[in-house]
């Protein structure tokens, strides 16, 4: 009996010992309800934070999809794609607290094609800004709480030089001088011809001032100081809160007329900073440019601004919805010229390159965003603004108020997608013909333009509604999917074709692949549980 007892005890002990082992924790972490998915040139990327990876979905002929995993940092805080959709940036907070050498530091992972490069940071920062030209990326704390450490420097900006490999001097950290403000938005300027030569600047908007940082000398030691412009309207101590900046290089033959214009959310002034030579006696090692500040009252809080070229020269165009006017500001003299608009448009963009038949010395701007539905969009011909401003605006009346405008790549740059504010439909605007073809939707449509400019995809997030629209014929093709679509990404296939990867949430995520050039539900292929694969 004693032997039997011992035998049973040993057996049970062995089983108990085996039960102590466990699988990696990733298997116990559901991926969430909605996938964080992004479209790159040749792949759709699903960020799988629980597994510390990005799942890259590549399309092949016959709607075959293959998945590869790329490692990313732990605890994803922010993600962004480059404007050319070539790269995905994943900002991660790392493991907090770090208890062992295996625990990760905060990092930025740059996914480019099939490779991933990781830059390590010292502290977690929750916001990300990406250079439209592709040279820089910047992480900053901002005012959000994501990834915040116990003690954080909200004015620290970490700059990543994407043209160089990670190293001791890449990234570089800069703390901008603060008068109490906290960075809200970062803007990378194009190359500007400044007195010291061609330069690229980082414009930092805090909640009360604007800072200019010379990116071409950001890694110098000692670093060149940034230039902080405190924003006041001159009437009192009230701080002005920047709401957007625009940049213009001015005359390409001059090095003293680059300008930055700033609008604010709480003041009627437009502030222009002309970047001229540094004053005599400026300390050595400092910046070789200096901003001259100009304030111009436009009669109301501007909702949007842009540098435009008129028949009277360079102007800052400001839309003032409260007065229903646009105001042209001469940045040199601060003289203003109001232009009465047929509706209180709130947004504008310059479309000269598209609508002008040849090299035009003056601009054409597209206006939209008026609350009155019938006001649609308007073309503002700035070549007539100085002499006959009242004849310079042509309205294209639409049935809906326009909320957003999206560009269409070549070969159809003349097209713009106008989404109604009510999101009950959209229009395909032909800038050259000045026509707007309506397309109605049964639900709230999200639009995705194919990078090859040939078609758009409309889907209703959270539903199975999906359609393709040929931009040449505007012929819609309804498509069927089994599960609600979270994102639609038109990607290049390895055989030269194109595919739509419709990513679906729920479970371990799915994807339905269509032939983008001949979309048909009958030839589509559905994939399931895509974040269960590749974890061995």
């Amino acid at each position, binding site marked *: 009996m004693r032997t039997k007892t011992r035998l049973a005890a040993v057996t049970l002990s062995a089983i108990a010992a085996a039960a102590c082992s*466990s699988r990696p924790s990733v298997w116990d972490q559901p991926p969430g309800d909605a996938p964080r998915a992004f479209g790159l040139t040749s792949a759709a990327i699903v960020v799988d934070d629980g597994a510390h990876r990005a799942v890259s979905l590549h399309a092949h002929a016959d709607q075959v999809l293959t998945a590869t995993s790329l490692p990313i940092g732990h605890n994803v805080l922010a993600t962004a794609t480059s404007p050319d959709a070539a790269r995905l940036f994943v900002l991660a907070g790392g493991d907090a607290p770090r208890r062992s050498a295996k625990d990760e530091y905060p990092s930025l992972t740059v996914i480019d094609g099939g490779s991933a490069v990781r830059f390590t940071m010292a502290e977690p920062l929750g916001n990300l800004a990406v250079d439209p030209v592709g040279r820089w990326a910047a992480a900053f704390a901002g005012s959000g709480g994501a990834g915040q450490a116990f003690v954080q420097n909200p004015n620290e900006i970490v700059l990543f030089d994407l043209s160089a490999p990670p190293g001791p001097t890449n990234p570089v950290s800069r703390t901008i001088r603060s008068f109490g403000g906290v960075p809200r938005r970062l803007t990378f300027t194009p190359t500007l011809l400044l007195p010291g030569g061609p330069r690229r600047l980082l414009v930092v908007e805090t909640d009360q001032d604007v800072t200019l940082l010379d990116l071409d000398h950001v890694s110098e030691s000692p670093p060149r100081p940034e230039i902080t412009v405190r924003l006041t309207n001159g009437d009192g101590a009230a701080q002005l809160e920047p709401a957007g900046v625009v940049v213009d290089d001015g005359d390409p033959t001059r090095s003293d007329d680059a300008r930055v214009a700033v609008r604010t959310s709480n003041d009627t002034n437009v502030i222009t900073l002309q970047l001229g030579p540094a004053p005599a006696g400026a300390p050595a090692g400092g910046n070789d440019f200096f901003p001259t500040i100009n304030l111009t009252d436009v009669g109301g809080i501007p909702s949007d601004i842009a540098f435009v070229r008129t028949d009277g020269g360079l102007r800052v165009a400001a839309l003032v919805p409260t007065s229903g006017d646009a105001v042209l500001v001469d940045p040199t003299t601060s003289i203003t010229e109001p232009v009465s608009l047929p509706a209180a448009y709130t947004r504008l963009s310059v479309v000269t390159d598209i609508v002008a038949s040849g090299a035009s010395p003056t601009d054409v701007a597209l206006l939209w965003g008026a609350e009155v539905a019938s006001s649609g969009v308007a073309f503002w011909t700035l070549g007539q603004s100085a002499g006959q401003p009242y004849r310079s605006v042509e309205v294209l009346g639409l049935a809906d108020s326009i909320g957003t405008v999206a560009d269409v790549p070549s070969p159809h740059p003349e097209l713009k997608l106008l989404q109604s504010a009510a999101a009950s439909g959209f229009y395909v605007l032909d800038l050259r013909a000045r026509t707007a073809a309506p397309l109605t939707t049964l639900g709230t449509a999200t639009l995705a333009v194919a990078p090859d400019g040939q078609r758009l995809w409309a889907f209703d997030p959270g539903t199975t509604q999906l359609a393709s629209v040929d931009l040449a014929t505007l012929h819609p093709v309804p498509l069927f999917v089994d599960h609600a679509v979270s994102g639609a990404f038109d990607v290049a296939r390895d055989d030269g074709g194109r595919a739509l990867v419709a990513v679906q949430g729920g479970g371990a995520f799915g994807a339905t692949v269509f032939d983008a050039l001949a979309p048909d539900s009958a030839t589509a292929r*559905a994939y399931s549980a895509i974040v*269960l694969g590749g974890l061995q």
Partner: protein
Amino acid sequence: MKLAFVVTALGITLSAATARAEGERPSRPMGEALPVWTGEIGYRASFVTDPGLNPFSPDDQLGQFSMGAERAVFARGRFAFATGLFWDVGGTSATARGDDASIIVHRFTLPLEARFGFAPWLYAFTRASAGAALVRAEVDDFTAPAHLIHSSWVPVLDLSAGGAYRIGNGGGEGKLGVWVIAEGGYGWAGRASLLLSPDLASDDPRRTGSVDLGTISLHGAFLRTGLALAF
């Protein structure tokens, strides 16, 4: 650690058997006194550390119902040799990132067993078993049009040792008795694919793709305990 427990268990079994057998004298060669026919049912616990099992098991364990029959085909002195057929069936299930995942394994083996009799009621054995296993993996995912499944056959091989002890006062040489059998060892299995596809009807027009969970090899230490009817 797991193997240490197995070896310890065998040691205890053998030492106890030797002590009890010292006071008995077999009436004929011990090997011939051991059971000729054995029918066994029991439980096989396998400890599989292969990462392929992770979606299907939270603790690396694979439990199976075990059933088998053997016949002694040769006996000399204290030794006897037996062969037969075993079928282990069972599986494990878990939640894999929110999805229900399960794996079922049918393991068919032909054992070759060498027995060493300590007494008519106690013997130790070593066993080598070869055969094949049917591995069926299944995942239920919200986005899938049907269960995601994959089945494949893989070769298997077990090497084990154990002991058998007749319980109760009934039985005797050539008579039906109830035996307790315990064994431990190592089981090897070929690597099976885990390329799961929706289990759609053959006439379903939908075109689907597969999800690749990698591969799995169900190798590892195992323990098997059971009861046998033998005579």
